[in-house]
C-alpha cells in the first residue's frame, strides 16, 4: 500500500460545504463493505419513492463531531439508464431525485483486480464533473493475482485522488476519510475523446438539449452521449415529446453512418480506449502467471459432474439447516408466547380485554417473531453464498433449467428457499435485476410447499390411510411437494407468456473471483433484513392476526362448548355460508371454518379443527383428530372425510395462499397492494379449480 505522501490541509470554509457524499461502483466491487467501514452502524435502509430500489444512507462521523451523510448508490455497471438501479444512480448524481439532494462528492469504488471494466463507470461519472475520489479496493486480491498497481500514477491519469484500500480489513479507510474531507472541488476537463467528427456532432446535440431542457453544458453533454447510442431512447422518459431533440438525434445518426462511424458502439469504444491508454504501465504483472485460485476452484465447482454434486450438497445443507436448526428456536418462541398468554390469562380478570391481549395481540406478535429464525438462517446462507462468489456460480449452473420456463438462473435460490418458507424466499428475490422476472418469481414462490403445510399434510395422510407405513406417507408427501413445484413452473411459464410478457431475460452476468466472506457485512445484512421484516411485514401480520382472532371470537355465545361458540362466531358463519361453494370440493362447513381460520396461517387449520371437533387435551397428537375426522358425517350420514375429500383438501392447500405473512411481504417487496391481492386471487382460484377437478373427476371415475 502506498504511503500517504501528501499532507491534506483544508480551510474551514472548504470543509463546511461537504454535507453528503455518494458511493458509486460496480456490483462485487466491495461497495457495501466500504459503506459499512465509513458509517459503522449509523445507517438506515429505505426505498426511493415509487421504485423498489433500496435506499441506504448512513452517517460518517469525522473527528468526533462533524457529520457527513453517506449515500450508498445501487451497484451498477453503467449509467446508461436501462434498469431502475441505473436510473436512480444517475438521477441522484444529477440532483434530479425527489427528496434526495445532489451529493457534494462521489466516491467511486473500483475492484483493483478488475480495473479495466470498473473504470468504465468511473469514466462515465467523471463526465458529470462532480468532485470525486476513487477507492482502489481489494488490493489484496489484485496482489494475489500478481498485479502491481501504481496508485499515484493512476491518480495522475484520472485526474482525481486515488486511495488504495482493503476495505474488508479496514486498510486505507482513514486515508479515504481524509481524502474525502480535503477533496478538491474543481474537476479536470474531460480527457477522453470521441472521433473528431462525432465530437462536433455531439457538441451540437448537447447545445440543443441544453436549450430545450434548460440544462448546464456538462449535463447536456452527458445526456447527449447516452441519447446518441440508445436505440430505445423513447423510454428515457423525460425527453419524450421534445421533437427538436429527437430530430437532431436522427439527423446526426444519419450523418455518422455516412461517415462510417458506428454510433451504437463509438462512445463505449472511445471510453474503453481511453481507459486502456491510461492503464498502460500502471498495472504491472509481476511474478509467474500461475493459474488463479478462482480458476482452479471453478474447474471443480462448475464441473460437469462435481459441480452438480457440490451444488446439490450445498443446497441440501442449507435446506436441512433451515428445517432442523430453525425448528428449535421456533418451538421456543412458540412456547414463550403461549406461556406469556397463559400468564396474562391467569393474572387478569376474564373478559374481552384479557382475550384480546392473550389470544389476539400476544398471539399476533408471536406469529411475526416465529418467522425470524428461518429468516436469519436463510439470509446467513444467502449472504455467505453471495459474499464468497458462489451465488453467481449457482445461477450459472441452474440457468439452463430455469430458462426453459423463461426465468433467470438467479430465480432458483428464492424458489428453493420457499420450500422452507415463502417469506424469506420472496425477500431473497431482490437479487433478480429484471423487475418482471422478479415479480414472476415472487408470484409463484408460494407454490413451493413450505414447512407450514407439513402439519396439514400429516393429519390428512393420517385420515386418508390410518396406520400408513413410512413409505406410503413419504410418497404422498413427495407427491404434494412435486405437485406444487410443477404448478410453480407451469404458472411461471404462463405468466412469462401472458401477463408479464417480456423478452427471455438476458443472462449477462459477471462471475466474480471467489473471496473469503466478510462476516461483518453478512451480519449487518441479516440485521437489516430482519428489521425490514419486523417493521414492515410485522405490522400487517400483527393487525391481521387480531382481525382473525376477532372473527373467531365474536359475536360471543355464552355458556356453550368452544366448538359451538366457534360455530356461532363470524368465522363460523362464513364457514356455513361457504358450504354451498365448497361442497363441490367435498368440504363441509366444518372444513369451511378451518379454511377461514387458517387464512392467516396454514398451520392454524389443525388447531381450528381441534376446536371444531371438541378435542381437548392431547392436541399435539394426531390420533384424536384423525379419529374425529373418520367419524365425521354429512347430515345424511355419509362420511365427510372420504379418501377423495382428503386428497382434494391436501391439493387445495398445495395451491391456496393461506398466509398473511406472505401477503404482507409481497406487499412490501412490490410496493403496492395490487400484486399481493392478485396473487391471493389467482392462487385461491387455482386451488379451487384443481381441487374441484380432482373431487368431481374422481367421483366420475367411481372413487369415493
Amino acid at each position, binding site marked *: 500500500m502506498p504511503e500517504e505522501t501528501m499532507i491534506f490541509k483544508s480551510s474551514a470554509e472548504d470543509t463546511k460545504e461537504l454535507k453528503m457524499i455518494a458511493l458509486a461502483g460496480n456490483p462485487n466491487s466491495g461497495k457495501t463493505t466500504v459503506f459499512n467501514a465509513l458509517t459503522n452502524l449509523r445507517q438506515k435502509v429505505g426505498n426511493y419513492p415509487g421504485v423498489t430500489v433500496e435506499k441506504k444512507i448512513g452517517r460518517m462521523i469525522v473527528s468526533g463531531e462533524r457529520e457527513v451523510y453517506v449515500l450508498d448508490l445501487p451497484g451498477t*455497471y*453503467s449509467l*446508461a439508464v*436501462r434498469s431502475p438501479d441505473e436510473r436512480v444512480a444517475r438521477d441522484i448524481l444529477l440532483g434530479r431525485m425527489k427528496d434526495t439532494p445532489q451529493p457534494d462528492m462521489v466516491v467511486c469504488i473500483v475492484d483493483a*483486480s*478488475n*480495473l*479495466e*471494466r470498473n473504470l*468504465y463507470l468511473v469514466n462515465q461519472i467523471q463526465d458529470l464533473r462532480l468532485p470525486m475520489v476513487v477507492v482502489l479496493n481489494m488490493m489484496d486480491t489484485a496482489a494475489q493475482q500478481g498485479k502491481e498497481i501504481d496508485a499515484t500514477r493512476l491518480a495522475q491519469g484520472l485526474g482525481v485522488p486515488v486511495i488504495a484500500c482493503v476495505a474488508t480489513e479496514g486498510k486505507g479507510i482513514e486515508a479515504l476519510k481524509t481524502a474525502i474531507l480535503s477533496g478538491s472541488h474543481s474537476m479536470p476537463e474531460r480527457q477522453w475523446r470521441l472521433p473528431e467528427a462525432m465530437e462536433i456532432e455531439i457538441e451540437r446535440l448537447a447545445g440543443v438539449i441544453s436549450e430545450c431542457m434548460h440544462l448546464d453544458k456538462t449535463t447536456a453533454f452527458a445526456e447527449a452521449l447516452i441519447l446518441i*447510442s*440508445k*436505440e*430505445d431512447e423513447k423510454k428515457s422518459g423525460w425527453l419524450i415529446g421534445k421533437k427538436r431533440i429527437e430530430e437532431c438525434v436522427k439527423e446526426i445518426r444519419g450523418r455518422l453512418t455516412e461517415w462510417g462511424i458506428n454510433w*451504437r*458502439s463509438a462512445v*463505449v*469504444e472511445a471510453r*474503453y480506449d481511453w481507459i486502456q491508454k491510461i492503464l498502460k504501465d500502471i498495472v504491472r504483472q509481476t511474478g509467474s502467471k500461475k493459474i488463479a485460485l*478462482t*480458476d482452479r476452484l*471453478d*474447474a471443480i465447482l*462448475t*464441473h*460437469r*459432474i462435481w*459441480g*452438480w454434486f457440490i451444488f446439490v450438497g450445498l443446497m441440501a445443507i442449507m435446506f436441512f439447516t433451515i428445517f432442523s436448526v430453525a425448528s428449535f428456536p421456533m418451538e421456543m418462541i412458540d412456547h414463550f408466547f403461549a406461556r406469556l398468554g397463559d400468564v396474562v390469562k391467569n393474572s387478569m380478570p376474564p373478559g374481552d380485554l384479557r382475550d384480546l391481549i392473550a389470544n389476539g395481540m400476544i398471539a399476533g406478535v408471536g406469529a411475526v417473531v416465529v418467522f425470524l429464525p428461518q429468516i436469519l438462517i436463510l439470509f446467513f446462507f444467502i449472504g455467505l453464498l453471495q459474499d464468497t462468489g458462489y451465488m*453467481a456460480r449457482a445461477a*450459472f*449452473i441452474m*440457468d*439452463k*433449467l430455469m*430458462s426453459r420456463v423463461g426465468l433467470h*438462473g438467479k430465480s432458483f435460490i428464492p424458489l428453493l428457499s420457499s420450500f422452507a418458507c415463502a417469506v424469506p424466499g420472496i425477500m431473497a428475490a431482490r437479487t433478480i435485476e429484471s423487475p418482471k422476472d422478479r415479480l414472476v418469481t415472487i408470484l409463484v414462490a408460494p407454490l413451493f410447499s413450505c414447512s407450514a403445510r407439513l402439519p396439514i399434510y400429516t393429519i390428512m395422510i393420517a385420515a386418508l390411510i390410518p396406520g400408513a407405513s413410512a413409505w406410503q406417507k413419504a410418497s404422498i408427501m413427495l407427491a404434494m411437494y412435486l405437485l406444487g413445484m410443477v404448478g410453480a413452473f407451469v404458472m411461471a411459464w404462463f405468466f412469462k407468456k401472458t401477463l408479464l410478457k417480456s*423478452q427471455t431475460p*438476458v*443472462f*449477462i*452476468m*459477471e*462471475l*466474480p*473471483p471467489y473471496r473469503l466472506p466478510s462476516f461483518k457485512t453478512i451480519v449487518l445484512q441479516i440485521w437489516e433484513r430482519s428489521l425490514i421484516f419486523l417493521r414492515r411485514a410485522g405490522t400487517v401480520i400483527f393487525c391481521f392476526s387480531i382481525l382473525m382472532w376477532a372473527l373467531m371470537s365474536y359475536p360471543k355465545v355464552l355458556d356453550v362448548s368452544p366448538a359451538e361458540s366457534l360455530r356461532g362466531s363470524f368465522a363460523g358463519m362464513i364457514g356455513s355460508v361457504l358450504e354451498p361453494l365448497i361442497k363441490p370440493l367435498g368440504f363441509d362447513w366444518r372444513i369451511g371454518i378451518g379454511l377461514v381460520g387458517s387464512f392467516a396461517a396454514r398451520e392454524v387449520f389443525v388447531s381450528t379443527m381441534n376446536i371444531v371437533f371438541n378435542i381437548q387435551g392431547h392436541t399435539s397428537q394426531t390420533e384424536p383428530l384423525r379419529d374425529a375426522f373418520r367419524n365425521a358425517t354429512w347430515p345424511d350420514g355419509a362420511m365427510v372425510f372420504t379418501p377423495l375429500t382428503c386428497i382434494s383438501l391436501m391439493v387445495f392447500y398445495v395451491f391456496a395462499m393461506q398466509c398473511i405473512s406472505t401477503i404482507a411481504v409481497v406487499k412490501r417487496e412490490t410496493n403496492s397492494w395490487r400484486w399481493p391481492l392478485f396473487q391471493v386471487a389467482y392462487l385461491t382460484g387455482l386451488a379451487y379449480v384443481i381441487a374441484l377437478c380432482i373431487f368431481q373427476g374422481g367421483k366420475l371415475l367411481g372413487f369415493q
Partner: protein
Amino acid sequence: MNDIPLDKLAVGQCGEVRRISGNAHVSQRLLEMGLTPGATVEVIRFAPMGDPIDIKVRGYHLSLRRREAASVEVSLKTK
C-alpha cells in the same frame, strides 16, 4: 472473411471481437461489459448443461447464454 460467432468457439480458444449484431438492448450491455470491437475474448468453459458460457474478457469472467454469444462475431486468434 472467417468471422465466426462467439458461441462456436471451443473451450480454450481465443477470439478478437469484430462486431456485435442483433438486439440493441443486448448489444449495448455486451459493449459496456467490455466486448468492444478489438477486445480479446477467451472461452473458459460451458456450464454443466452446455449453456451458458463462461468467457474471459478484459481480465475478468463473464457468463452469457449461447444465444447472446451468437450475436458477437469474432475472428480466431492464437493465444
